[in-house]
């Protein structure tokens, strides 16, 4: 029979774990809902999000003397808010997802190479990581974005420069740790190539951590992308940040435009953060202190 204090501790840990599962479930539900809405978007949108109708501009949402024809009201150009938000979800999620994916590719490749080639190449790559870390990224991003007037692809490229170092450092650290282990040494002895050991055997070891980071990075990217759009430096397509950028001038006459759009961004980002937090506890408790 364990002492009382111990049992209380065990009980508390269990409730903590269950609570984490709750956060994972909540996050996953939100994320799935948003992604599903974005995917079947065009079939859902009651109106063409690009169609402006100046006769119906700045109609308030339904709970504030609005009508059910435009449940969330219309924006300054008479576009239906629901349709706009769904179209925005498509753009914002597509850009963020591509940026996360590209970041992951760049970061992991750099980390793998730097981890296995410890010589000059590895050293150079890590100096590059240091350089990136010691410069305020956002300043660079807005400069590049403002001079290139980005389209979808250039914006994804700019966003990908943000956080590749996170993956690079993680992967390199783990590779260095793994390469001390017997199975890697054994692999070298039986003549497996370095690239093969790295990608087939060492990389899977860091996969859980990468999944966790990528989930949390989705949250970061959605925020970053909408910030660039909000500053007028992003894409011209309808995205959440662009709706906010347009809505800023109607702050006094159409408060719902910015308020609702920001709320949608907040809930989506919260979903990804909750999901990432929950995944971290299940897949990789070690990561807790890293970020």
């Amino acid at each position: 029979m364990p002492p009382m204090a111990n049992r209380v501790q065990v009980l508390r840990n269990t409730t903590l774990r269950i609570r984490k599962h709750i956060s994972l479930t909540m996050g996953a539900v939100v994320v799935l809902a948003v992604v599903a809405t974005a995917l079947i978007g065009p079939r859902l949108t009651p109106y063409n999000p690009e169609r402006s109708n100046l006769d119906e501009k700045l109609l308030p949402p339904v709970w504030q003397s609005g009508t059910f024809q435009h449940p969330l009201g219309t924006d300054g150009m008479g576009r239906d808010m629901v349709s706009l938000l769904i179209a925005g979800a498509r753009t914002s999620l597509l850009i963020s997802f591509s940026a996360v994916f590209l970041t992951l590719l760049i970061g992991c490749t750099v980390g793998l190479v730097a981890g296995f080639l410890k010589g000059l190449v590895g050293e150079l790559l890590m100096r590059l990581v240091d350089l990136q870390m010691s410069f305020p990224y956002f300043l660079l991003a807005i400069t590049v974005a403002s001079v290139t007037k980005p389209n979808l692809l250039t914006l994804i490229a700019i966003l990908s420069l943000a956080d590749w170092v996170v993956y690079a450092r993680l992967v390199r650290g783990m590779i260095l740790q793994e390469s001390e282990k017997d199975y890697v040494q054994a692999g070298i002895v039986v003549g497996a190539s370095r690239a093969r050991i790295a990608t087939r055997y060492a990389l899977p070891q860091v996969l859980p951590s990468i999944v966790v980071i990528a989930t949390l990075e989705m949250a970061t990217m959605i925020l970053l992308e909408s910030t660039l759009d909000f500053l007028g430096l992003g894409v011209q397509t309808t995205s959440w940040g662009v709706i906010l950028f347009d809505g800023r001038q109607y702050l006094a006459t159409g408060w719902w435009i910015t308020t609702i759009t920001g709320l949608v961004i907040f809930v989506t980002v919260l979903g990804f953060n909750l999901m990432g937090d929950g995944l971290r506890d299940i897949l990789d408790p070690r990561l807790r202190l890293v970020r």
Partner: protein
Amino acid sequence: MSKFILRRLAQSAFLVVGVAVIVFCILRFIPGDPALLMAAPGTPKQAIEGYRTLFGLDKPFGVQLITYLSKLAHGDFGTSFRYQTATLPIVLQRLPNTLRLTSLGLFIALLIAIPLGVEGARRRGSWIDRFGLVLSIAGQSLPVFWVGLLLVLVFAVHLRLLPAIGSVGWKSIVLPALTLALAVLPPLLRIVRTQMIDVLSQDYIMTARVFGLSSPRIYYWYALKNASIGLVTVLGVQIGYLIGGSIVVEMIFNYPGVGMLMMNSLNARDFPMIQTIAIVVSVTFVLINLLVDLIYGLLDPRIHVEG
């Protein structure tokens, strides 16, 4: 120690030159001729040629870069296209405003993060701990610009309590600083809590308690001192976010700092100004990080900095 400082200073100088070169290159890759852009429509061709010679735009790229760098070395940061005067004084005049805003924001964030993190670590699972956790995950998910817009909406548009557009008086700094504080709070809160949990499990805390030291003294002096090593690391990283955040916040609140100058210069394609801001900001950033490294040594004498 002095050897270490010297080496870090040399690294920093290298970094700043790197920034200057990178920004210069980015700005020269733009489609569109700066001379044409700055000339008013209908300017005679000869005048535009004059601009081109004046700013050295007619020379080859390499020559332009070297001229630019050697001028920099002599403290000549160039002439603003928009203001027609030297860029550096204008940037330096705005810099104190931004430093005031960011340090106030950071101060507010620490004022919340430290007590909340310490109490959360002290009583894990209590309502105050849960409040901290919810605050950190919700705060992490809030778009900074949205928080700013909501504050403008409530305080300036509806309540008319604070000036949305204003001077540099204390009233005009409150809302932007609060917005900025909320943006940097979550990571600070998290690190204080995890570090404190780690420190509190160590033997010397128990020893201190056995010796009868008061709880506040143990928690807020002995334990916090050791927990703050992790905090300082995170602070160093957060400085970058503070700079980014202040650009956004200054835009929303029309706060006359470097961030707003940057956005206006980007819109006006005032390249010398953009270059100067990038250099001034990265010098500030590098100096703060150097300071962070030095504080390390003070906080933890075990960390031996090698020359």
